[in-house]
């Protein structure tokens, strides 16, 4: 058996591009205007009013937050809208030391997935109404020790005049301290 494969893989590595210079700045950023559709349109309007709205499928019993107008499991239209509570339980949380551009943040932020309460319903871990958001009131140690898992959190809303109809109308989900 001759030497292992691949034999002499090729490629020319380089460190910095000195010459030729082919840097193309993206001139005029492409601006998008996403249509929110039936479901998210109402979801965002609800956020402006300080409510978290969802849809439900009567056939399988699932509740969708963020809402959709179809149940992707039964493949039919949902049966109606409901209001989920703006509080719930932390399903998973992490501590970010870097920003979206990978720069170091001055102060780390906690982020996680929150399983929201819905009136009269229980959910297991398999499928539940949940959203990603910032978590405030949690220390680095709360996250590293995993104490934050299962903690109860409640939405901290911006003032009504500051809301624009966006997920950031909620500043963060605050840990509920007894």
């Amino acid at each position, binding site marked *: 058996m001759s030497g292992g*494969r691949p034999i002499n893989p090729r490629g020319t590595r380089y460190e910095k591009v000195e010459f030729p210079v082919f*840097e193309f700045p993206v001139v005029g950023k492409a601006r998008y205007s996403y249509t929110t559709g039936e479901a998210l349109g109402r979801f965002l309007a609800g956020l402006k009013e300080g409510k978290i709205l969802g849809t439900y499928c009567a056939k399988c019993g699932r509740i969708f937050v963020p809402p959709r107008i179809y149940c992707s499991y039964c493949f039919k239209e949902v049966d109606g809208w409901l209001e989920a509570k703006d509080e719930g339980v932390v399903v998973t949380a992490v501590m970010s030391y870097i*920003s979206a551009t990978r720069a170091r943040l001055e102060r780390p932020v906690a982020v996680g997935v929150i399983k929201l309460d819905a009136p009269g319903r229980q959910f297991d871990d398999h499928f539940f109404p949940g959203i990603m958001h910032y978590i405030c009131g949690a220390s680095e140690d709360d996250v590293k020790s995993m104490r934050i898992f299962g903690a109860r959190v409640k939405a901290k809303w911006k003032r009504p005049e500051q809301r624009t109809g966006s997920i950031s109308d909620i500043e963060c989900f605050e840990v509920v301290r007894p």
Partner: protein
Amino acid sequence: MTGRNLNFKHRVAVVGAGLTLFRSRLLETPQELAWLAAKQALDEAGLTLKDIDCVVIGSAPDAFDGVHMKGEYLAEGAGGIHKPTIRVFVGGATGVFVPIAAWWHVASGLCKRVLAVAEEKMSHAAKPHTQYVFRYIWDPIVEKPLNPNLIWIFAMEMHRYMHKCGVKKEDIALVSVKNKRNACGHPSAQLCMPNITVDDVLKSEVLVWPVQLLDISPTSDGAAAVVLASEEEARRITDTPVWIKGIGWTLDTTHWTNRDLAYPEYVRRAAEMAYRMAGIDNPRKQIDVAEPYDPFDYKELHHMEGLGLAKKCEAPILTREGVTQRDGDLPINPSGGLLGVGNPIAAAGLMKVAEIFWQVRGEAGERQVKKPVYTGLAQAWGDLMQAGTVIVMGI
């Protein structure tokens, strides 16, 4: 013996494979990278471009190379001019989806010898940082306004897995150590680290706790290629064709905040599909070597469980006991995986398929696992925690 539920017109085999170097910055243009890998695969199979009748190309988001229809752009370098050529794309799962699509071409009887090429040039999207391209992955309405960094999702999944299974970072770091050391036997490897220890991983920069710098695979440029042939052709080309015994692929919802992150359901379903085809009902015993997708160290454990190679929450125990080392009972990622060899998104999965091909033939050199290999598995995963692709190969 093995019962196959499905009848195909033609059995399909892999008869050659090729790889370029994987590095963070390669000078070659995307077509040239595709050509380097394709030429090596053809040479290994003893074929020329004229012998190929169909071409399948795999490449991940156009936003990396910075060219529209980036797959078709590669056609010249992948031998796809004036031939039936298609490009497939399922995010990171593309690398294993490329041979799956190539399998369709041959199994249907439509093509006899197919060249399958995957390429990625991530270094083109240079400013502010290649990772920035991943911002397109988020839901623009309910997630992007929060200014997320991609690593958040992996950190959340990793932390949930750690919480559910009671796994410590030390156990997960063992995977990074194993793979970055394994990579030293791979000629294309970007990150061979022969002396890396668990301590090194735990002391590396914390990006998004619990994810640290040495838990992650690098961004890379690179290309890979394989040649597939029908049974008749394969026996003419080589004495040791490696048969494709099973394929599977599955997609899950992009609403990843609505489901349990501790277990990859989409991998399980894709694996089930492949195992059913291959007649495998006890993967832990019937798979001799596996290359699950490992862009992060915890992902190897996560996917091992999804593939049924370990029971839920058992994968870290197997790793700790050395079962997944090259000389262990179930070697995992003997190539060094994405953590060690590199992660040019689409080419990485195909690199794993090439590894299984060479392992089955006994041609993996230093990386050859100790136990005899009859059946191997490669798996890839992509997009927003959704797409799973699996391929089972052997003799």
